[in-house]
C-alpha cells in the first residue's frame, strides 16, 4: 500500500458564529446551522456564499436581486410537533420560493427550512396559490414505483397515488442550506398522496448524474403555523384543499354503513310487523245517491272499543268526465251525539289545449283519517254529483278500517338513507376538489 495524501476531514470544523458580512453588499450574515451548512444566501442582495472550514465565506454566485417578503420571516422561531415527536423548537434558517408552471398558469409556493441542532432539518411549505400548508422532512428510505393503471409508489406497505408532476423552478433563495441551491435551479417534481401523507420525489439532473430526493409531508392548519411561530394577526386564508388532506367524510363512512345496515334491518322487520298487523277491513261499501237528498244511514262498528284506528274513505264515480262528485261520511256516536265528518271528492277533467291532450283530478278520490276511536257508530252518508260536463253515472263509496299508511313506512327509510347518502356525496365532492388541481382531474365535457 502506498501512503497517499492525508484523508480529508470527515467533519468540518465548527463554524465560527462571529460577525461575517456578505461579500457583495456588506450586509451582516450570521451562520446558525453550524457545520452542516453548504450555502448561505444574503437576504438582502441574494448573493450565494459557501462557508469555508475556517468560518470565512466565498462567493458561489453573485446576485443583486430585491428582497421578497415571505409569509414567514427568516430566523423566526416557533414550536411545532412534527411527526409526533412532541413540540420542538425550530428556527427558519433558509427559505426558497419555487413554482411550477402548467398550461401558462403558475403555481408558486414558499419553502421554509426549519432547523433544530438536536433534530436536524425539516420543511414547512406554504402554497401561495391556495393558502394551504405542509410540514415534513426527508423520507427515511425510498419509495418503490408501482406499475399500475394509476401511477403509484409504495412505501412501508402503503400505496401513494400520483397527484401532480412538473418542473419545479427555484425563483428566490434566502438564508442557509445544507446543500447548494440557487435561483433558476430546476428539478423534476412528482407528488404522490396517501392521505394524510404526501411523498414528493424530486429528481435533479446534473453533470454527475441524477440527484433524487424523497420528502414526506403532511398538511398542517394555517392557524397552527401562525400560533407556533407567534405571528401577529391572522394567517392568509386557505382557499383550497391540500392534496393529501384527510377526507373528513371518509372517517364517517364505516360508521354510516354499519349504522344504516343495522337500522335498515330494524326498519324491514318493523315494516313487516306493521304491515302484517293491519286488518285493512272493509267496513261498508255500496252505491250512494247522485243527488243530495235523503242520506244513507246505517249502524257500523269500527275498530275495537278503547282503541284508535285509521279509516280510508274512497269515492269512485263511473262514466264521469269534466265533472265532480262529493260524499260526506258522518260517524255519529249516538250516546254523546258527537260526530266525525269525513269528506271525499272525486273529480276528473280532461281536454285538448294547443293540440296537446291534458287531464287532471283524481277518480277515485281518497281520504284517510286517523285517531278514530273504535266503537259503534251511526253512519250517515250525504252525496251529490255535479250535473255539468259528463256527469257520473253512479257513485260507489267504500270505507276501510285499520289501513296501511305508507307515509309511516317511508319516513324512517328516508332518514336511514339520507345521512349515509349525504356523507357519500360529501366524500365524493371532497375527492373531486382534491383531484381537480391534479394531473388526473376529471375531464369535464363542454357544451356549446
Amino acid at each position: 500500500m502506498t501512503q497517499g495524501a492525508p484523508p480529508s476531514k470527515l467533519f468540518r470544523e465548527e463554524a465560527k458564529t462571529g460577525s461575517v458580512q456578505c461579500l457583495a453588499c456588506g450586509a451582516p450574515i450570521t451562520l446558525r446551522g453550524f457545520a452542516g451548512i453548504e450555502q448561505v444566501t444574503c437576504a438582502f442582495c441574494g448573493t450565494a456564499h459557501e462557508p469555508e472550514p475556517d468560518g470565512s465565506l466565498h462567493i458561489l454566485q453573485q446576485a443583486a436581486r430585491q428582497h421578497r417578503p415571505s409569509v414567514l420571516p427568516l430566523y423566526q422561531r416557533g414550536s411545532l410537533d412534527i411527526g409526533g415527536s412532541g413540540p420542538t423548537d425550530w428556527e427558519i434558517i433558509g427559505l426558497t420560493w419555487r413554482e411550477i408552471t402548467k398550461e401558462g398558469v403558475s403555481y408558486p409556493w414558499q419553502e421554509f427550512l426549519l432547523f433544530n441542532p438536536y433534530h436536524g432539518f425539516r420543511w414547512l411549505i406554504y402554497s401561495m396559490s391556495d393558502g394551504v400548508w405542509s410540514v415534513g422532512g426527508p423520507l427515511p428510505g425510498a419509495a418503490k414505483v408501482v406499475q399500475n393503471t394509476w401511477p403509484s409508489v409504495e412505501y412501508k406497505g402503503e400505496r401513494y397515488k400520483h397527484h401532480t408532476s412538473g418542473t419545479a423552478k427555484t425563483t428566490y433563495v434566502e438564508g442557509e442550506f445544507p446543500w447548494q441551491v440557487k435561483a433558476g435551479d430546476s428539478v423534476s417534481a412528482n407528488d404522490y398522496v396517501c392521505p394524510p401523507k404526501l411523498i414528493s420525489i424530486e429528481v435533479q439532473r446534473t453533470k454527475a448524474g441524477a440527484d433524487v430526493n424523497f420528502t414526506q409531508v403532511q398538511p398542517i392548519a394555517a392557524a397552527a403555523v401562525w400560533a407556533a411561530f407567534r405571528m401577529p394577526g391572522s394567517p392568509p386564508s386557505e382557499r383550497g384543499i391540500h392534496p393529501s388532506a384527510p377526507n373528513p367524510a371518509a372517517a364517517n363512512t364505516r360508521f354510516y354503513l354499519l349504522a344504516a345496515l343495522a337500522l335498515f334491518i330494524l326498519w324491514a322487520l318493523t315494516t313487516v310487523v306493521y304491515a302484517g298487523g293491519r286488518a285493512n277491513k272493509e267496513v261498508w261499501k255500496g252505491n250512494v245517491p247522485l243527488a243530495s237528498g235523503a242520506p244513507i244511514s246505517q249502524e257500523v262498528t269500527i275498530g275495537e272499543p278503547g282503541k284508535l284506528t285509521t279509516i280510508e274513505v274512497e269515492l269512485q264515480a263511473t262514466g264521469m268526465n269534466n265533472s265532480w262528485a262529493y260524499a260526506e261520511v258522518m260517524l255519529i256516536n249516538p250516546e254523546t251525539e258527537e260526530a266525525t265528518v269525513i269528506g271525499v271528492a272525486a273529480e276528473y277533467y280532461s281536454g285538448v289545449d294547443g293540440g296537446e291532450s291534458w287531464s287532471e283530478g283524481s277518480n277515485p278520490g281518497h281520504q284517510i283519517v286517523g285517531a278514530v276511536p273504535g266503537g259503534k257508530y251511526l253512519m250517515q252518508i250525504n252525496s251529490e254529483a255535479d250535473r255539468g260536463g259528463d256527469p257520473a253515472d253512479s257513485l260507489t263509496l267504500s270505507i276501510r278500517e285499520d289501513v296501511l299508511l305508507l307515509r309511516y313506512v317511508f319516513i324512517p327509510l328516508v332518514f336511514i338513507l339520507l345521512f349515509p347518502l349525504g356523507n357519500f356525496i360529501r366524500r365524493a365532492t371532497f375527492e373531486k376538489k382534491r383531484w381537480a388541481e391534479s394531473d388526473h382531474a376529471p375531464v369535464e365535457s363542454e357544451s356549446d
Partner: protein
Amino acid sequence: MVPKILYFMLSAGSLGLLVIDAPRGSLLTGSPESGKVERGPAGPGTTIRTPHYVFLGGFHGGK
C-alpha cells in the same frame, strides 16, 4: 358527532313512530272535522227507519 347523534335520533324517532303511532295514525293523517249533531226533521211523506242527524259542527260547550 352532532350529525351522528341527529342521525340516530331521527332514525330511531321515525321508527318509533312506525311502531307506536302508525296503527292509529294520530300524527301523520288529516284531522277530520268533528262536533255536535242534532236530530233533523223528517221530510214530508218520508219513512225514516233510522234517525236523521244534522251536523252542527265546531265546539258546543265543554260542560
